[in-house]
Structure formats: structure tokens, C-alpha cells
């Protein structure tokens, strides 16, 4: 059981540790370095999300898993803000190109699309009660956006030539995809009625 936690720690820790040894860092300023690592951490947080909501982390009750999912969702939005703000400070014209979908780099539109999906989910999650969104409505919104976030983040990350070491980056991306597919299958997210309602009662 502890193996799952160890595997998660390795999947997050190894890419960050290897990126910290990248020779690229020598040629970067502190703000650019911070922006880069915020991006790596953000990808790691994306991995935690399906594991938490699927209840795959032993020792966490469904209630605590859901609470952690919300907090990590907030942390993910914050990491993305740091990533984008740091890159903006590093090279404003390149960041503006990316945000306006006019960048020459093929990975930028994937990252920017995932960013907007993260912001929409974070804002809706924060306002869910106030807006009176029912759980079923919320899931109809959240699940497609979660798929956009995962796919966008993985493609964005894989196409970038930066501080991340190639193999550890590929493993982390594969883990994100695998965890997402597993939670979608296990929770049968394409089913609308019985399963979801049963779970929502159990999990509330």
C-alpha cells in the first residue's frame, strides 16, 4: 500500500530533481527558473488530482481525498499563475504571442488552453455553492474541462525543450494520462444517472 505513495513521490520528485540539475539553469535568471519549476510542479499537481478523486491513495478517506482535491486544484491555479507571470517578466513579447494564440512555438496553444480550463474550473469550484450548481451539473462541466487540462498539459510539456529531463518527463506525463483514464473508467463518468447519484450521496 505504501508503494503507491512511494511511486507518487518518485513520479513527482525525480523530474523536479533532474530538472534542478539541468545545465540550462546556468543561463537563466531567477524569475525564469521559478517560472519553469512552477510549470513542472503544476504538472505534478495534475497527476495528484485523479489519484485523489479516484480514492487511489491509501490512508485517505473519500472525504479527505475530496478536500485535498479542492486544495490542490487551488494550488494548481496558483502554480499556473506563477508560471505565466514569470515567463511574462522573462520575455513579454513571447508570452503575449502565446496568450493571443499567435506564437510560433507549437506547444504554446496547448498550454494556454489548459490554463483557461484550469481557471474556469477553479472559479466555478470556488463559486459552486453560491451559483447553486448541482453536483451533476458541476460534473458535466468539470469532467470535459479536466480532460482538456490533462491533454493540454501533457502535450504542452512533451513538446517543450527546456530544463526537464526527457525520460522522467515522459514517465510523469504517462502517469498523468494513466491516472486520468483510470479514474474516468472507474467512476464511469460517461454514465449520467444511477452511478453518479449513488456516489454523490456516499461522498458528500
Amino acid at each position, binding site marked *: 500500500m505504501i508503494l503507491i505513495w512511494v511511486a507518487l513521490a518518485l513520479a513527482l520528485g525525480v523530474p523536479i530533481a533532474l530538472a534542478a540539475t539541468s545545465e540550462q539553469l546556468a543561463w537563466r535568471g531567477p524569475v525564469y527558473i521559478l517560472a519553469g519549476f512552477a510549470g513542472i510542479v503544476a504538472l505534478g499537481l495534475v497527476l495528484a488530482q485523479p489519484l485523489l478523486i479516484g480514492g487511489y491513495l491509501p490512508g485517505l478517506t473519500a472525504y479527505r481525498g475530496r478536500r485535498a482535491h479542492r486544495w490542490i486544484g487551488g494550488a494548481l491555479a496558483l502554480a499556473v499563475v506563477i508560471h505565466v507571470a514569470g515567463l511574462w517578466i522573462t520575455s513579454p513579447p513571447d508570452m503575449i504571442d502565446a496568450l493571443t494564440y499567435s506564437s*510560433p512555438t507549437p506547444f504554446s496553444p496547448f498550454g494556454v488552453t489548459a490554463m483557461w480550463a484550469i481557471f474556469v474550473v477553479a472559479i466555478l469550484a470556488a463559486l459552486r455553492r453560491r451559483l447553486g450548481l448541482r453536483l451533476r451539473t458541476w460534473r458535466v462541466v468539470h469532467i470535459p474541462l479536466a480532460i482538456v487540462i490533462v491533454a493540454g498539459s501533457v502535450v504542452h510539456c512533451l513538446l517543450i525543450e*527546456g530544463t526537464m529531463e526527457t525520460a522522467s518527463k515522459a514517465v510523469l506525463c504517462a502517469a498523468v494520462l494513466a491516472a486520468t483514464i483510470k479514474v474516468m473508467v472507474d467512476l464511469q463518468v460517461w454514465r449520467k444517472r444511477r452511478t453518479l447519484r449513488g456516489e454523490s450521496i456516499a461522498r458528500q
Partner: protein
Amino acid sequence: MTMVVFNRRHFLAAGGSVLATGFLASGVSGLLLPARAAGLAPTETMSGGANNYRKGAQIVERIGKGGFWMSGTVRRAGDGAPLAGQRIQIWAHTVEGQEHEPQSHGATLTDKDGKFRLEMPQIIPIFGQPHGHLAYDSGEFKTVFLRPVMRSAKETSLEAHFVLQPA
């Protein structure tokens, strides 16, 4: 075949086509087959090409300590005649500085064959791609900004080619 976007990377990707091969060969050698010269199209500014541009970079022997070569050709649209004495500005994120910093910028002139070559510090990846920037903006011809991408961050040279049309 339909060629929607005319940039060097698309040409490299489209190696199978005869048309692309013709352009690729001209791009690599810097020479143009006379038969094709008549309708030589002007180079379009690349997206992001002008990012971190600084006006009026000085003509230098080399940028910083060198170790990396930026080279290319400048020709006239239509007949493809080489353009001598044209000022090309070059900048990049290198081991000696970021793109926007003055020491990362320099300029050089084309020789009588329309070729230019400037030594500069090693280019390293910035914003996820190892790339350089070049500009022609001396006024006689229409301004063009290029942003060639290196196939690998380990390469120690990069080429970019200008075909200019009258301003």
C-alpha cells in the same frame, strides 16, 4: 501539394515533394537554380520574429566570445540576385545573455555574393525552443524578421535566408 505556410521548418518537414526539395536545396546551399530564379518570392516575416528586437544593433566582428555561427544569404525577390552590403541584425538567448540584453545583439554586412556570417555565443533554448532572431530593416527593402529554430540544442550553427522586395 498545398503549401499553406511558407517557412523553413515546413519545408524541412515536406522533404518528399519535388517543390519542397527544390526550395530545401536552395535553402541549404544558399544558391538558386537559374531556371527557378525568375519568380523568386520574397521571404515573409516569421511569427515571433521581431520579439526582443532592439533597434540599431552595432556592426561587430563577433557577438561576445563567439563559438556559434549564424549564417545565411540575402537575395532580391524576382531575379534572385545576391544583395551585397546589406546589414543583417542578429540576436538570441545565448550562454552570455538573454534575448533582450544589449550584449546579445549584433549586426553584420553581406559580402559581394550576398552571404553573411557572424560568430556569436552558443544559442540555448528559450521559451521551449532553441532559436535565433534575424532582422533586415535598413529601409531600402521591406523589413523582414526571421526566427529560425535549431533542430537540436547541441548544434553550433544556424542558417537563415532573406529574399527581399523593394520597400
